């Protein structure tokens, strides 16, 4: 038996132009005149967004950015306190894939950022029927760990994270 898609016909948005950071210092092959003059590159929301924007939706060959599940504004970073907070919006109210998306986000952030950051992943208020349950599930360490032990789930997450064959329109 094949299950029907939960959202068979999603709205696809344009991908935003990738801005190169203007303040990136050029690479000096040899000693920079003032070796300590670079300010540190503080971790910001764009860093986080850049690492998660290309995660593929579990159902469709589009990225989370294209489906407007995520945007730069939905991410907040506090480097001093070591917190990253992501709020994402599933495409439909009854989306059962929300947990998978959340899991993908968590795995990706675990890979890309140092372990001392506390990561909070939430669905945006009012966007999902069982919002509280999902939020609780996504931020429960034990349950996340258990989910990643499940080989099928792990494979699904890996496919979403490493699929480079995103359709480009």
């Amino acid at each position, binding site marked *: 038996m094949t299950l029907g898609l939960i959202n068979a016909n999603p709205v696809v948005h344009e991908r935003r132009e990738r801005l190169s*950071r203007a303040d*990136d210092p050029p*690479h*000096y*092959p*040899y*000693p920079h005149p003032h*070796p300590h003059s*670079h300010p*540190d*590159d503080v*971790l910001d929301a764009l*860093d986080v967004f850049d*690492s998660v924007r290309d995660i593929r939706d579990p159902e469709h060959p589009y990225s989370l950015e294209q489906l407007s599940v995520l945007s730069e504004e939905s991410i907040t970073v506090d480097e001093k306190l070591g917190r990253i907070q992501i709020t994402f919006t599933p495409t439909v109210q009854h989306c059962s894939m929300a947990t998978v998306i959340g899991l993908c986000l968590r795995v990706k952030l675990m*890979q*890309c*950022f*140092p*372990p*001392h950051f506390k990561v909070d992943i939430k669905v945006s208020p009012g966007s999902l029927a069982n919002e509280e349950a999902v939020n609780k599930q996504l931020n429960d360490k034990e349950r996340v760990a258990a989910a990643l032990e499940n080989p099928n789930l792990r494979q699904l997450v890996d496919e979403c994270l*490493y699929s480079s064959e995103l359709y480009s329109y």
Partner: protein
Amino acid sequence: MAEPSTWVPHIESFVDASRTSSQHDASLEAIATLVKKDIVSLLEVVREMEMYLTTTDNVIRSRGTLLLGEILVRISHKTLDHTAIDSLSDFFISRLADWVALRGTLTGCHAILCRKKEVGSISKSDVQKFSKVFFEEVDVRSLAANDRKLCYELLICVCTVHKEVATIQGEDLVYDILRSIDDEMDPTCLMLAFQLLQSAMSLFPVLSDMAYQDAFDILSKYFPVYFTHGDASNDATREELSDILLNIFCSSPKFEPHIIPFLLEKLSTSFSLAKLDSLKYLRKCISCYGPDRMADHAEDLWRSLETVIFNKEEDRITKEALECFETAVSVLITPNRDTFFGLICQKIDSLLNRIAPEKQAELHALGSIFAIISRVSDSLCTRVFRKYFARLVNSLVESIKGSLNSEALYLVSEILSSCRGLIQRSPDSTEVISEKVSWLNILRNYSGDLSAALLKLVNAITSLKEESLVVKQENVLCAVKCLEVLATFPEGCSPITDETYDLILKSLALIISEMDRSTLLWKSTLEGLIQIGSVAENSIDRRRSLVYTALVVENLLSAFINSTLPLDLSLEALYGIGMVGKHRMEQVLQVVEEIIVVKILKVCLEGEFVHADTLISLLQFYSGRIISWLSDAGDVSEVAMQFALHIWNQMENKNILKNIHVMGILDALMMTMKHLVSVSTINHQSVILQKSHEIILKSVSCPTEWFATAFQNPELLMSSPSSSVEDLNLISLFASVITAVSAQTPLPASNPNSSSNFVSNLFLFFFLRGHMPAAQALASTINKNPTDNKAIESCLSILSEDKTENKQFFKKDIITGFAWIGKGLVMRGDDRSKEIIQFLLKLAISSQHGLDAALSAADGFHIIMGDSDGCLNKKFHAVIKPLYKQRLYSTLVPVLLKSMKEANSKEVVCRAFGHVISDAPLTAVIGEAHKILLAVAHSIITLSMDIQNKDVVYSLLLVLSGILMDSTGKESIIENLHIVIGVLTQLVSYPHLMLVRETAIQCITSMSTLPHSKIYPVKPQVLKAVTRALDDKRRAVRQEAVRCRQAWSRGKN
């Protein structure tokens, strides 16, 4: 003749399937050699083998047949008589039915068929018999890949070597071959199959329609060629297969009814490789099949191309589609065939009526179509002009009054640049000019209105008064491009009047002087002006050239003199304009020279130090760009000499000399002097030398007698009063002259009677007082004048004598100076360099004269091994022995490796080692990777303690990554994996240089591709180190760390 007992065992060994393959090979070679040397006759061998060739045991029979076949391959150049050949071919042909022993039979047949006439070849009747039996008995499709390959090679041999026999068989041959290659999937075999079919079809000028139909049915299955399992391990690449398939289709126009509809259908799929290949095939087929055959497809072709061109596709597909379109336009549109053009016009008409600014993609596609039709031929261009140009120009001119029709502007610019290209391609354009309704005449009729409108647009952006017209930069950009095109038609067919030409130049020059310089508009206007200038320069009509000089060049020069433009931009503009021609550049050169002298006076005499930066940029521009351009363009010697003398004349003024070293001016001036001297001829160099020598003699304040004896008497050197600033400045400038002269130029002597040692004594004196330019000049003289032994001996005598008590000689400057002299000797391949190298090594290893001296000695190796811009290089005429770096590298490395353990200060030795390794050619280092790898690792760790060494650490890391990228280097890395990983993981948190951290992580990332069994044990260590880097201060490092972690954690586990 040898006794059978001596060679029959070889046969037995080959036939015995239980032996190893190397034994088989050995016995085969042994028998083949015996036959080749006539020690054993072929007949005897066959007779002995009879049992093996006829036995009913399948394995032994197949081995026997294979042995005979392989022997025949090996004696292909040995003459055999007819009887032998006939009986052998009879034997093999009869064996084609024996499928168990087929490999040997095929090998034998191939060897016989390929034999040259001179050494006895197979008879025609046998070839005929062979091909008949082959197709009857052998089912190629059921064989293994290697056997299929043999079959194809055999058949290719039949079709190429035995053409006349193959032709007799007629179309049946093609059918038989088609049957054999059907469903072939192995890339290597497929390549041969295609070659076979190509050579078979070339035998027959025309085949029946059915044959083409069948061939197409079989071949079309392979389109587009792509590999399901990657193409890394195949002998035949995708491109090669695709090309040969295309060649088969193009070989006969009779494929046309089948292939063209097929390709058009493939073009509408969503598989981008299919699209790309269809377009490529279409392009080639259209030009091969010609207009008559393609006429029926015109409409379908246009519809398909239209869809691709007007829909947004990948860039490479759009590009290929436009190329295909261009071929179609040039082939399909002929005077009596108009369908294709009509279709294009329909599309253009429908688009022109409703084109809107928001449909940029459509507009660009339309622009490309216009550009292509107008550049294909004069007659098509004329049709475009008649049909559309007037309409576009009118709507553009109309819209200037109100809101600009930027689409029309864009399309006009595309058409204009195409038609200029058309006229530039065919210099003999009398036909176009004489024809009354040619595009050029239409353009002439409209050029007045058009250029007036364009000028109005361009002027609107430079003048503030006319506020009624608000213009966008991109529109002005387009207008500038149009004006450039109008002004760059070759003379004789210029569509614009002289007055318009003047106006265009004025407007563009205004943009250069008035507009914001950072914009694209400024840059492209400059490029436009350069283009116009080069056309004006090459035309016989001097009027335009003169106007250009007056309106553009002089305008820019005066802007430069009055510095109304920022310096860097006006220099860029001047250089651009200068590149138009030699006399333009000389014009620029003259003005720059004048300004340089004015600025020198201002800074040094009037103390206006604000001009120092300008002066330095001017000097750099002068020597780095103008002089090198002129020397590439031709003879620059005279000009260079004049300016060098001019500079020396200024030096006669004591006040200038006193101040010339402020704010780095002297360095820039020295570099300029070196360039000037290096581009001069030997005669001119002598003149400069003479002049500078005179000034030195006249102006240096300390007595010249000192120079000759200085090195023998260190006390005198110490006790004499220190040199004045003027003296040092003058010596520096003189040193730069000496550094750059060529080896043949005679050096001046202090008086005609003495030897030519004056120069070297002078520099030796100042070198021992720690003056670096003097040391470099001395090194240059030593390098270029091998006969001047005295200077070398004087230098070396200082080293040989016991002067350890004299601290004077262990200062940084002196040690560095010796390194320069050593470099001069090493480059020339002089053995005496050994003494200096030993001196430096001893200093570095023993550190008995303090750490500073040791460090300077270590850095000396960087000077000796490295390349320098300032002296001792090819440009400044140094004598360079090939591979001198490799030689020195291989002498130094063992010594340094040995002393690394015993040295007092390990850091110093590691530093020296680091310099030697990183300055040596990478290939030499990689060749000895196994010997030095551990030392490199050790040095990196030792050096990474101190921030001073960060550059050396970085260079060593680059060497390490170079070793890592090389296949033999990788083996050494694997052998020492734990140590290398240990070093790299330590560098991941190197605090002093971001580049080191970034490169270290990149190295670790690339190590994730090493064999998994080797890298598995270090994985936890790597992941731990890289996880730390996720928290790095710098973003670039963090991103590398993420990539590295992914690479390592995704590896096979």
